[in-house]
């Protein structure tokens, strides 16, 4: 265990956290404002990755492919919400869960049909390749870019939510959804806009993750579940909770996976440590979530309800 | 006469509740004695619901204590207080709408009998559950409607069921939260007669807006304004109190 390992894994944790934040922000807004459980959020992430990979494959420059992925995911989200999902707002969470579960299955097959079952590769563009050297470590430049973009989006979201009229409506909606409708706002358009915004962020996450994780059917589900853990731990409906929760979960998960096996090997005999280490590491964030829920059921940074 | 017979069934001392900057319950003291009806009146927004919430245990007080049958229940939960004998009926009827009238009351009886962790005998065949339930329905005048699905009842019948469910717990103190809410003249009069008959077996804290009913039923009246009890005494005293008129009755135009 060396300082450089700790620092580089810490950065990896932040990078994971930033991606989780992009996912969590949209999902938590949809939960908080429309009271809607959207399990298909992972599918929007997947579609973002595939759209970007397809565009890059066609020779579109990387950044434009990314914007295309965001726009595509946002559009897909908007259409889905308008045509199908809005009908589910009135139904119990059970049916929302079932419906979006069905969508996950459907989208996975769509992707399998057009691109096949094996992973599609998306390369990091040459301009973003290479590594930064500092404090004795080499850290991939691309991962820095992800962190930077993620933090930039977090800042932009903060400004939108706290400094614009749209943001005020969103905050009002998150703490008291009925009131916003009563105030005469076109609630349907607001809902669709929030949904599309969340979808776009998911698409952005998928696009950025594409080169470092593999683009394949079902890639959305592991990320979705991590995102759920983030939201529950951070506090449903809270952007602040989504951000802080995402960073915490990202760091804990990454550091846990790297260092728990090592720590275990210090005081457990070799074969037991090799078995127990990864096992406990994989459970770590769920245990964290359980502890948070036991002590503070509303999450670490909940929205104050009006 | 032993001291326990002289002691109030319910005692509230120095109860305080704040919501942010708002003082919803302002150092409230009150008691409910056996065999009496103590009515709480006050304008809307006076904090009656908040007060009841703290008495039942749904809401935790910031300061002060609640003593029931001589025991400090300030930290006890809703279920515990219900088991000790504190029964509460709701202003907005809280029942299981898909169940029958009888099934709703059976739930109360089951609770009173103790544990419902019984898995074998069909409850519909358990006389010790069914008979007290039917008796409670008889008491409130709903016996004929026992097998009707609650969703099909008239509003007044909902309120009767609400009371039956509370009575089936065999409580010692009844907290009645606007039992006459939404009732017609005829229905209200029936409810008033019914509540009057309950006095002998229970101590009753009655929260109501219906002034006719209050003045017919109450042995004592306390007036709650902005979370504070501004006056407390016999109906006559309250009727003639200047402060009460100013704060509350003046708007209602009560006939002296």
């Amino acid at each position, binding site marked *: 265990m060396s300082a450089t390992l700790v620092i580089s894994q810490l950065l990896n944790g932040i990078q994971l956290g930033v991606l989780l934040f992009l996912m969590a922000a949209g999902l938590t807004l949809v939960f908080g404002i429309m009271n809607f459980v959207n399990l298909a959020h992972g599918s929007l992430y997947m579609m973002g990755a595939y759209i970007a990979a397809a565009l890059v494959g066609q020779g579109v420059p990387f950044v434009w492919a990314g914007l295309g992925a965001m726009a595509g995911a946002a559009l897909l989200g908007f259409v889905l919400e308008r045509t199908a999902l809005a009908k589910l707002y009135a139904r119990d969470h059970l049916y929302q869960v079932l419906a979006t579960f*069905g969508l996950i299955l*459907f989208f996975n097959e769509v992707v399998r049909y057009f691109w096949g079952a094996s992973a599609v590769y998306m390369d990091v563009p040459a301009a973003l390749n290479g590594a930064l050297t500092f404090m004795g470590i080499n850290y991939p430049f691309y991962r820095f870019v992800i962190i930077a973009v993620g933090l930039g989006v977090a800042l932009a979201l903060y400004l939108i939510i706290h400094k614009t009229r749209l943001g005020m409506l969103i905050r009002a909606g998150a703490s008291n959804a009925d009131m916003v409708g009563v105030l005469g706002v076109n609630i349907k358009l607001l809902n669709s806009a929030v949904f599309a915004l969340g979808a776009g962020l998911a698409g952005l996450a998928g696009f950025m993750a594409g080169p470092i994780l593999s683009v394949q059917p079902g890639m959305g589900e592991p990320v979705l579940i991590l995102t759920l853990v983030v939201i529950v731990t951070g506090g449903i409906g809270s952007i602040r909770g989504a951000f802080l929760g995402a960073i915490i979960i990202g760091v804990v998960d990454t550091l846990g996976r790297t260092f728990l096996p090592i720590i275990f090997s210090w005081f457990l005999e070799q074969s037991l440590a090799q078995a127990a280490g990864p096992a406990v590491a994989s459970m770590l964030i769920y245990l964290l979530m359980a502890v948070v829920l036991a002590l503070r059921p509303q999450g670490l940074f909940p929205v104050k309800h009006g | 006469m032993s001291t326990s017979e002289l002691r109030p069934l319910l005692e509230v001392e120095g109860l305080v509740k704040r919501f942010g900057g708002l003082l919803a319950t302002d150092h409230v003291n009150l008691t409910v004695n056996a065999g009496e009806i103590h009515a709480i009146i006050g304008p809307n927004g006076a904090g009656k619901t908040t007060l009841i919430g703290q008495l039942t245990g749904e809401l935790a007080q910031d300061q002060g204590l609640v003593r029931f049958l001589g025991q400090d229940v300030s930290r006890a939960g809703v279920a515990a207080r219900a088991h000790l004998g504190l029964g509460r009926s709701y202003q907005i009827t809280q029942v299981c709408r898909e169940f029958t009238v009888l099934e709703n009351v059976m739930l109360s009886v089951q609770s*009173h009998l103790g544990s419902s962790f019984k898995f074998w005998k069909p409850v519909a065949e358990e006389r010790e559950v069914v008979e007290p339930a039917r008796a409670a329905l008889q008491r409130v005048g709903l016996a004929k409607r026992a097998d009707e699905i609650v969703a099909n009842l008239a509003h007044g019948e909902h309120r009767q069921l609400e009371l039956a469910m509370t009575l089936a717990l065999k409580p010692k103190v009844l907290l009645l939260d606007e039992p006459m809410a939404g009732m017609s003249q005829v229905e209200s009069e029936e409810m008033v007669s019914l509540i009057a008959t309950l006095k002998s077996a229970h101590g009753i804290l009655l929260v109501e807006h219906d002034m006719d009913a209050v003045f017919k039923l109450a042995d004592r009246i306390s007036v709650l304004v902005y979370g504070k009890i501004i006056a407390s005494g016999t109906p006559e005293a309250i009727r003639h109190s200047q402060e009460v008129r100013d704060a509350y009755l003046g708007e209602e135009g009560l006939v002296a």
Partner: protein
Amino acid sequence: MKRDRAFWFAAATLAFLALLPVYAALAAQPFYVTLFSRIMVFALAAVGLNLVLGFGGLVSFGHALYIGVGAYSVGILAHHGITNGWVQLVVALAMVALFAAVIGAVVVRTGGMTFIMITLAFAQMGFFLAVSLKQYGGDDGLTIDARSAMGLFDLANNTVLYYVIFASLLLTLYLFHRFINARFGLALRGIKANERRLAALGYPTFRYKLVAYVISAQVCGLAGFWLANLTKFAAPSYMAWTVSGELIVIAVLGGMSSLFGPVIGALVFLLLEEVLSSWKPGIWPAAETLLGNHWLGLIGLFVFTLALFARQGIFGYLAGKKDSAGGH
């Protein structure tokens, strides 16, 4: 006991299941016995889930975890040379009770969206745990050499296994019938209908929900025990979140407001999956190949449509019930 339509439909279905192996023997299609064994396993799991889903109002998206625990109990014990089925069963039920009590203590306090999400998360945790257990097969799963030794019952015989599973399904349905009609069932359904009022009546609602959760988990554990025996295999995939989702689909499709609904749901849903994925009558080869490769997408659309329009489920409809009325 009233013999209404619901009763007769259920009886007919059970009669069909009872006679199926006879038909399979006559038609020389032994495959039917294993197919319907598998259907009954999932019917059993869905009946278990429905105790908390339909009667308790708790949407658990993680009940497949307990199928996995049941299956792995068989697998791990067999791996270490303990092949007595009764021992394995006791261990399975005990392990499930332990997991369910601990997890339930955390999750049952929550409700709504949070409950759904964390049950999903805990099931995933179990999945990853199983994957990380390399000495028990990890991602590839654990092969079981032979079916459990259960004394009189020679489980190696597919037909015997079929009838033992059928018997456990009947037993579970009967026990649940008694639970639901007893005080416990009334209390549980009351908590689902109006938890706040039940608490005000003096019910420690958390305890009732937790007990229901543990009971329902154990039925899933039993289903897992049978699944491991049926397939002679235990794998993390038994606990995949999609399996939890399918259990919910089965319950909703069949009808959540009755005990028997999920049995119908399992029959319809699993047969549908079977037909979509393997039926190749040769009428339209191109479409059949497409379907064979991508039938899961069609299932996805089916589930989506079900979610939009489901009311009382197939069994509820057949029995003439309205939207989620009382128990069976």
